[in-house]
């Protein structure tokens, strides 16, 4: 037998094709870590820019996330209604917006009073 015919070549290929190729747990781990990296990179960014700006201001005035609590959700909702008010709710969104802006001002006044 010589490898001078394609049949012999086919025998060679058959040996190769029949070989068992075990997959290591380490490889599965590597593949899964890549999947996690892609998932993390494509995770949706939380708040929209406008909400972030206002959120940061409120956060500063109030004293950090622990104190923020449910107010954050109310703020975001208020901002959204302000940006895109349903016609029937316009008077309501205006009043909500007004009351939110008063929070830092009031806080500042109190601090001034205490210091003075």
């Amino acid at each position, binding site marked *: 037998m010589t490898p001078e015919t394609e049949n012999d*070549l086919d025998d060679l290929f058959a040996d190769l094709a029949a070989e068992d190729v075990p*997959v290591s747990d380490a490889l599965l781990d*590597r593949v899964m870590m890549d*999947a*996690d990296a892609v*998932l993390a990179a494509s995770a949706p960014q939380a708040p929209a820019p406008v909400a972030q700006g206002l959120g940061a201001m409120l956060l500063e005035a109030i004293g950090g996330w622990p104190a923020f609590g449910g107010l954050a959700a109310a703020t975001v909702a208020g901002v959204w209604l302000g940006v895109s008010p349903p016609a029937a709710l316009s008077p309501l969104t205006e009043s909500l917006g007004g009351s939110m802006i008063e929070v830092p001002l009031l806080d500042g006044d109190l601090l001034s009073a205490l210091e003075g």
Partner: protein
Amino acid sequence: MYTPPFHMNDAHMNDDRPDAVLLSAFALGDRQAALVLTHRLTPRVMGQAYRMLGDRAEAEDVAQEAMMQLWKIAPNWDADRAKVTTWLYRIVANLCTDRLRKSGRGVDLEAVAEPEDDAPSATDRMQTQARAHAVQAALGDLPERQAQAVALRHLEDLSNPQIAEIMDTSVRTVESLIARGKRALVARLSGRKAELGFEDDT
């Protein structure tokens, strides 16, 4: 957040959703879908890469890279186009021929399997390994498309129409690529017949 080690449980093993459905789920953030795809597809990808390259570490690198490309294309996957497995065959074939051509490899003696205890089967194994590596080295010398067509036909046992789809060409072109590739391989390997044990088969 990834927390190794992870293990396949029955729920993963029995998840029979099609690859494309799992890929869409992954694109929407479903980590379990990635887990199922990892266990389902990595062995196939690894097998194809190893049969073409004959080197476990290199094959693992190719398998990881092919799967990474799959994760990245997930959000843009078009369910109407090729099957996921067809697409992966193409990716792996391309990655492997790239490596074969760049490495300009000969027979890698270090990659030959360790001899078994009993001498006769050890000899057989060595010879089988030498033949395998000779074929893989010769594949690396072929034009890329010929090497891919021959490997998909004879190492992956795919039909010519399947290969045509993978290579995005006609069945007729596939037939031609395989015929030319095999002629070139026979010419190359016949010079090494003594080394590969073809002359003294008993």
